[in-house]
């Protein structure tokens, strides 16, 4: 199988990720619950992971790194802390349902910036106007459908100028591009552990620039006499037993990223995507959503065929050994912005562990599938 669905989950991980998880299951108990060796080993693993993440994302203190179950969990904490019913919230037109659904569930007055794909100028112009009177702003760092790298630093400058707290969904960019929490000055940055950070599913991270209200309450192993959650991080947001095997795997994933460099990994993935695009150029009827400008698109490519249904093409690719995702990718708002809501797209997302040959082979299989399905 050629795995091209890294925007959903990175399937191939560094070997040390598997080894660390195996070791954690065998030897680690729960952090903050005891002082015996296996509990302290778990505590050290969690703390080392916080430190690595703090270094990677330029967070001044490791206690501002909060472990969550996934990016959706992290986004829910952030959104529910800043937004109440009726609040005006400005979002990019490329948000995932992990942002949109919590906002709608809260009854927020959601204003989406509908700007043309890869057009930073139009996007910034609209943010500038729409942010006036907003209670919060949310932007994805990179679209999970089109790979569009949103100008989040420029948006953060605007937000600071207008006094609007910003939440960044870094689900696609974390581990594949530069992300500087201090420079960004966001209220929160949310990300999963299982995509670009190369950790396992069931891990997520919230970088906190403020002290949020907890989404869940429960045991933390601290201030146990109080019936309220502690007023300090990360305990305030980490009720219940930690996913220590997951965190142990995530630690090794993050170490891999730091050894190899997030930006270098992102460029390697982008090079693979460019190779793929060059190899499918001659397939008739295929529309790719692609820009040559590497600063505007990461290694996520959507395409559609003029006469073949996206899901049928996706299924054919899957049956022939190319794992991709078709449809709306849980981001109908992004499709609405670009005009692909009815057709959906077939999404190819690239991993640093793919070879050039894998990519050429995937392009060849796409060609075969298209030829077969259009006749």
């Amino acid at each position, binding site marked *: 199988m050629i795995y091209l669905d890294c925007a959903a989950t990175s399937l191939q991980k560094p070997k040390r990720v598997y080894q660390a998880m195996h070791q954690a299951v065998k030897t680690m108990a729960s*952090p*903050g619950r*005891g*002082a015996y060796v296996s509990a*302290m080993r778990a*505590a*050290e693993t969690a*703390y080392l992971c*916080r*430190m690595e993440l703090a270094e990677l994302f330029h967070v001044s*203190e*490791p*206690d501002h790194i909060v472990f969550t179950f996934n990016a959706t969990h992290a986004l829910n904490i952030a959104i529910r802390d800043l937004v109440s019913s009726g609040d005006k919230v400005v979002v990019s037109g490329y948000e995932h349902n992990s942002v949109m659904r919590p906002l709608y569930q809260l009854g927020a007055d959601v204003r989406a910036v509908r700007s043309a794909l890869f057009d930073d100028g139009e996007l910034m112009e609209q943010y500038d106007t729409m942010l006036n009177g907003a209670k919060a702003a949310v932007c994805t760092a990179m679209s999970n459908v089109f790979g569009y790298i949103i100008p989040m630093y420029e948006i953060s400058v605007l937000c600071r100028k207008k006094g609007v707290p910003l939440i960044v969904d870094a689900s696609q960019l974390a581990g594949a591009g530069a992300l500087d929490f201090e420079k960004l000055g966001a209220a929160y940055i949310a990300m999963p552990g299982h995509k670009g950070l190369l950790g396992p599913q069931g891990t997520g991270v919230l970088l906190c620039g403020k002290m949020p209200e907890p989404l869940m309450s429960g045991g*933390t*192993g*601290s*201030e*146990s*006499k*109080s019936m309220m959650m*502690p007023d*300090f*991080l*990360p*305990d305030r947001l980490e009720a219940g037993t930690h996913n220590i095997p997951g965190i142990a795997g995530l630690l090794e994933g993050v170490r891999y990223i730091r050894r190899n460099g997030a930006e270098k990994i992102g460029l390697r993935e982008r090079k693979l995507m460019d190779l793929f695009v060059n190899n499918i150029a001659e397939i008739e009827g295929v529309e790719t959503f692609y820009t040559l400008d590497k600063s505007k698109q990461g290694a996520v490519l959507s395409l559609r065929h003029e006469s073949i249904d996206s899901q049928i093409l996706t299924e054919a690719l899957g049956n022939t050994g190319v794992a991709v995702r078709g449809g709306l990718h849980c981001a109908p708002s992004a499709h609405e912005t670009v005009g692909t809501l009815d057709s959906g797209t077939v999404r190819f997302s690239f991993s640093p562990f793919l070879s050039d040959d894998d990519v050429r082979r995937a392009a060849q299989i796409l060609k075969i599938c298209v030829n077969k399905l259009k006749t």
Partner: protein
Amino acid sequence: MEYHLIMCRSLTYAQRALYTLERGGVNVSLVKAPQAVSRTGCSYGVRVSSKRLQTSLALLKAKKVPFGKVYRYLSGGELEEVEL
């Protein structure tokens, strides 16, 4: 050898203290604080040699690592609060 206990509000704060002091050249161990001095329930702290107490406190203050009360270990294992 005499020891002091520097209390921290959480495990993560105690870990920050541990790493800060280790990097500053202080031998230190992370401990779960005895119930008698865990005013709010469960607490952690770091145990340092009494000779290095002032250095340790200075390091923690310099690195802005939050800490709480400080206790001296008595011979029977009991703790006596130290006025700073």
